[in-house]
């Protein structure tokens, strides 16, 4: 695809051309073949099941979930944490494209930015379904409510997550609109925001880690290595997701990503997958070699404690997936056996979803601060709502890509009045 399109002498005024851009984008987003309609209908159906479960939860309270006063965060906050990582990981396309001026990555970097937008929407949705009083969300708005900044880490998280969403919306929206007009994007409206987004991506997962690691009463989270672990795992999950997405786009759309972009991402995965495993190992060593009551949560997670072991099969499957993926990234030639890499990407996405999800949140609460052992297994309501939110995220991702593909293949272009 061609990025240096000539700046055509379009004179369409923004007042006319921007509504046209939105209208055409709506048309493109709702047009497609049977596969597209089938995919979107399935996602809508799953989302609606989630919406319905959420409506019931809102009426009857979080008592409909499996959470208790002992394990007071569960499936929702686990998925939130993983989704923030996915959003931060998308920056691994931005760095090669803008810092190292990788031409092929530059052509497809918008895929990463659209992933960031979708993943942040997913993360924010998970927070919203977790809080007990959605009607009081306005209490957080500075000026109208009482925003406990800078003391509460949660207020920092609100700032960095919404900031990251806005930065990426700006970059994606601006690039697509300029391209739609047939103009060359103005660097001063792109580069500062792109470099800001790189720093910001690190901040979203650091702050999210600080939410947990700042709590002295929860030894399992109260570890300085948590933030580095979050970053390392984000830089695995983001690229792994995009490797799969780029290949699917090459097969299903008119948009052809160059071979180089996928290869670069696999090179990144070779390093980050190992870094992630190393940090997990460092954590596990410190816990078990030290021993004492500090190790109880890790003991529960990896081996079970006093006969309670709900997470044991999950965490070992996750570790097996992560180790398998790391070995594949290091040993398999992506040019010959790309499909094995794809399997490894799926495996590690699952592994990280467990490790950064329930595997991170639940042991923070088991054993409880009074050392009581109350287990937690998400119930049907939580599964429905969670799957619904992921379906919504995939819809946003699909529609975003659909519009981007139409614009970049010049199927969607401004029409002079």
């Amino acid at each position, binding site marked *: 695809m061609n990025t240096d399109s000539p700046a055509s002498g379009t004179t369409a005024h923004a007042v006319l051309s921007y509504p046209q851009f939105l209208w055409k984008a709506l048309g493109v987003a*709702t*047009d497609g073949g049977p596969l597209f309609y089938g995919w979107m209908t399935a996602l*809508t159906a799953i989302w*609606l*099941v989630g*919406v*319905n479960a959420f*409506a*019931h939860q*809102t*009426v*009857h*309270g*979080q*008592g409909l979930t499996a*959470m*208790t*006063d*002992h394990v*007071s*965060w569960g499936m929702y906050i686990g998925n939130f944490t993983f989704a923030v990582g996915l959003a931060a990981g998308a920056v691994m396309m931005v760095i090669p494209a803008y810092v190292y001026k990788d031409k092929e990555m530059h052509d497809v970097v918008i895929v990463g930015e659209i992933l960031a937008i979708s993943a942040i929407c997913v993360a924010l949705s998970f*927070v919203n379904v*977790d*809080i*007990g*009083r959605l*009607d*009081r*969300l306005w*209490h*957080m708005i500075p000026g109208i*409510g*009482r*925003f*406990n900044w800078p*003391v*509460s*880490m*949660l*207020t920092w998280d*609100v700032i960095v997550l919404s900031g990251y969403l806005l930065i990426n919306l700006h970059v994606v929206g601006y690039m697509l609109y300029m391209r739609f007009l047939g103009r060359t994007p103005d660097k001063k409206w792109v580069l500062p925001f792109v470099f800001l987004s790189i720093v910001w991506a690190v901040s979203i997962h650091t702050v999210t880690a600080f*939410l947990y690691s*700042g*709590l*002295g*009463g*929860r030894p399992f989270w109260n570890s300085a290595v948590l933030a580095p672990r979050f970053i390392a795992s984000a830089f695995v999950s983001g690229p792994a997701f995009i490797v799969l997405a780029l290949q699917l786009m090459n097969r299903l759309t008119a948009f052809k990503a160059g071979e180089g972009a996928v290869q670069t991402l696999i090179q990144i995965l070779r390093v980050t997958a190992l870094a992630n495993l190393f940090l997990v190992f460092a954590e596990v060593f410190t816990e078990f070699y030290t021993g004492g*009551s500090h190790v*109880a949560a890790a003991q529960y997670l990896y081996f079970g404690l006093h006969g309670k072991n709900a997470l044991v099969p999950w965490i070992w499957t996750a570790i097996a997936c992560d180790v398998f993926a790391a070995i594949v990234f290091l040993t398999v030639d992506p040019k010959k056996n790309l499909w094995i890499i794809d399997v490894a990407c799926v495996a590690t996405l699952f592994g990280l979803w467990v490790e950064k999800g329930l595997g991170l949140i639940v042991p*923070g*609460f088991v*054993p*409880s*601060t*009074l*050392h*009581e052992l109350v287990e937690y297994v998400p119930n049907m309501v939580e599964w429905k709502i969670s799957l619904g939110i992921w379906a919504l995220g995939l819809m946003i991702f699909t529609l975003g890509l659909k519009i981007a593909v139409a614009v970049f293949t010049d199927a969607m272009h401004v029409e002079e009045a």
Partner: protein
Amino acid sequence: MSTDRRTMMKATGATLGAAAFARALAPLTEWTEDLSVEGFLQRHYKELSRDDMAAVLRRIEDQTREEYGASVHVEDVRPTPGVQFAYALNLSVCIGCRRCAKACHEENNHDRATNNSYIRVLEMSNGSLDLEHGNALYDHEVPAPGKFYMPVQCHQCDNAPCVKVCPVEATWKESDGIVVVDYDWCIGCRYCEAACPYHARRFNWTKPEIPAEEINPEQAYLSNRIRPQGVMEKCTFCLHRTRKGRLPACLEACPTGARVFGNLADPDSEIRWVLENKRVFVLKEDLGTQPRFFYFFDE
């Protein structure tokens, strides 16, 4: 496919989708019926004028009558300047009968079905203060041989992790040392529940249910009024009683006199005497939370 037919199909799809969405959200109508405009717009506790507060209290009383069928009296009881509350518990005489937990359950209008209470009593084995060897679910005659008992409730920390983490300042420390929650301001994120090292906070997972005749009608805005669904709650040292010179319900219920409550600022108070003359300790001192709840042994 012609453009017209495609547009028709899209319109049909959008209509069906919107109808399905409305249907999925239908249960919400039940929820919106319970919401009032005044309730939605209500300001933070510290921003309410005297008149605002009077209106809020009347509204809460009306709601309780409507939803629970009980006539109650809700007050806004403020701290007395110069008073600093603290609590101490004698582990040598506590027998683990859990009458304190029961008294708390009744005094503070807790949900009946879950048998909720702000106090959790741990049965500990002689020879260890390690909570890991405690058990809150004991079900046998007390006191059992070789055991001692440690009730745990909110420690009203001077350096409270729960207050620090709240994103909307819905929980804070009052001038007399009591940590309170504005149940009408809390958004229910449960970050405070994760931050508390003493398992002192409780969430209203559902709307509390109590038969009208069992409701304690003497209520305060910041303490034992019936909490709304979806918000946090905690022990308030029964501020609706203690700020009026009475003792906490858990203390009055204790058959062994293990509990000592009072004003730290009063040099003649029993609590001062205990802190000055007994070997006193606090739970998890290494976390630096600086509790106002102390434990001691007699012998």
